[in-house]
């Protein structure tokens, strides 16, 4: 126990007596954490943006004007039985007409034509949303069978199919880019941090030799570096946390305009706080301990 307290004391002395080097190490760790958190922000925004776009995609199944309620109900039950279907909304003929009128309220010729017809020419519609855009094709294929030909008049899926495919491609590309950038940034941060700590230990190589000379065990020499790693990790996490928090507060009002959700990023970070803090703390701590362990090893040999 006496040795442990001495190790802690030596670690604190080292930090304060090599203050500029300690500050530099913390700054590098903070930059690394900011890079990682930037990627978390990008990932969160990308995911939300893609989800928003997907939310606006649906498939409308327009029923024949003459289709009976029994037939419509049959198709509706069949479609809703698919596990891929997230939700569906049935619009009666009247609701469809109302929506149509609203959509064309500035086009007087269409409205006049409608009035000239004595009865509602439009059939009812089933608006279907699936979990993934790729699921729409399955639904459409399922109802594109001869027995439903006289019930279903049209499916608007064909109109949005290209868009869905494009979104799918973009989604995949964005996800791939984010993964690539994450790996790249993590590697850069890793090597910068690795070298900073190596340089810090290189400057102390003579001290390490002297400590060995007076009979210090390897653990007595390594100990302060491990304690310093804990302290550097806590400091860098704290500083990065404050900066990220303020950064999110600045970004959120801009994102509110796009997503219509208040404090989107702050809520995202709050919801994932334990996970993010845990992973980042473990990552930085493992990196600093591993790096100092590697860097110090060759000076401990004799």
């Amino acid at each position, binding site marked *: 126990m*006496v*040795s442990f307290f*001495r190790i802690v004391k030596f670690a604190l*002395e*080292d930090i304060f*007596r*090599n203050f500029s080097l300690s500050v530099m190490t913390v700054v590098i760790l903070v930059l690394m954490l900011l890079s990682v958190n930037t990627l978390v922000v990008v990932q969160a925004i990308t995911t939300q943006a893609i989800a928003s776009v997907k939310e606006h995609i649906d498939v409308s199944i327009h029923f024949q004007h003459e289709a009976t309620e029994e037939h419509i109900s049959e198709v509706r039950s069949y479609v809703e039985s698919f596990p891929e279907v997230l939700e569906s909304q049935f619009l009666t003929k009247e609701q469809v007409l109302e929506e149509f009128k609203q959509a064309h309220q500035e086009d007087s010729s269409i409205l006049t034509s409608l009035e000239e017809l004595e009865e509602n020419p439009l059939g009812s519609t089933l608006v279907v949303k699936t979990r993934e855009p790729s699921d729409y094709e399955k639904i459409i294929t399922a109802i594109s069978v001869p027995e439903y030909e006289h019930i279903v008049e049209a499916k608007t899926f064909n109109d949005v199919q290209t868009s869905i495919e494009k979104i799918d491609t973009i989604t995949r590309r964005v996800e791939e880019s984010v993964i690539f950038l994450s790996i790249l940034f993590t590697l850069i941060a890793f090597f910068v941090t690795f070298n900073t700590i190596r340089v810090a230990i290189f400057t102390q190589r*003579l*001290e390490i*030799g*002297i*400590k*060995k*000379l*007076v*009979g*210090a*065990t*390897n653990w*007595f020499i390594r100990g302060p570096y491990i304690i310093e790693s804990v302290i550097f990790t806590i400091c860098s996490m704290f500083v990065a946390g404050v900066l990220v928090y303020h950064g999110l507060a600045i970004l959120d009002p801009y994102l509110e305009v796009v997503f219509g959700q208040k404090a989107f990023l702050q809520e995202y970070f709050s919801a994932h706080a334990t996970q993010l803090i845990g992973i980042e703390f473990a990552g930085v701590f493992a990196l600093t301990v591993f790096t100092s362990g590697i860097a110090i090893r060759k000076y401990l040999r*004799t």
Partner: protein
Amino acid sequence: MIKLSGVSKQYTKNSTGLDDVSLHVDAGEFVCVVGQSGTGKTTLIKLLIAEEQPTGGTVEIGGWDITRIKQRDIPLLRRQIGVIFQDYKLLEKKSVIENIAFALQVSGATHKRIQDTVPRVLDIVGLTEKKYAFPHQLSGGQKQRVAIARALVHRPKILVADEPTGNLDAINANEIIEIIKKINAFGTTIILVTHDRGIVNRLRKRVITLHDGSVVLDNTHGKYQL
């Protein structure tokens, strides 16, 4: 106290540190080791503190065969041998008192023992008033005295001094030698490696002369002869 039997140290095919050296140093002896540069003096010290291992022969310290000493036992050995160097090897970021106390702290000495021992060794080397100074605030002679004090805190049975006066003027060099003589008078075995002919001749102690890694002279009350 120190026994080398047929010790050789071959660094590479063409580089020999020591070649079949056998010698015996009794407890409490004062031995000067002289020789030109590259004759194996530093290799001898490195073998004694287990910084190197011999390629042949055996090295014993106080009956302990350290020829193939395990890594984990090296700290224990070094706490039993005090070593001082020409370049002092002080921890620049620690004060005088911290440098000396550090040698005890690493061995797990109690706070009380450290508080009792450190002022005493500081007094022996005459640096009580400089205890809070840092190495860069000290003269060469003072730095060497700190190194001696640090080497003494474990009450070592052997003190190895590698060119301890090499960076000092004549007055400081004599002061350091006087302190080393005083330590020897308390019963500590001294191995003094030096180039200083005057010091060796004045001491009139045992002189071991090395040449090309071998012992060429071993005189009980010898002089510097090269």
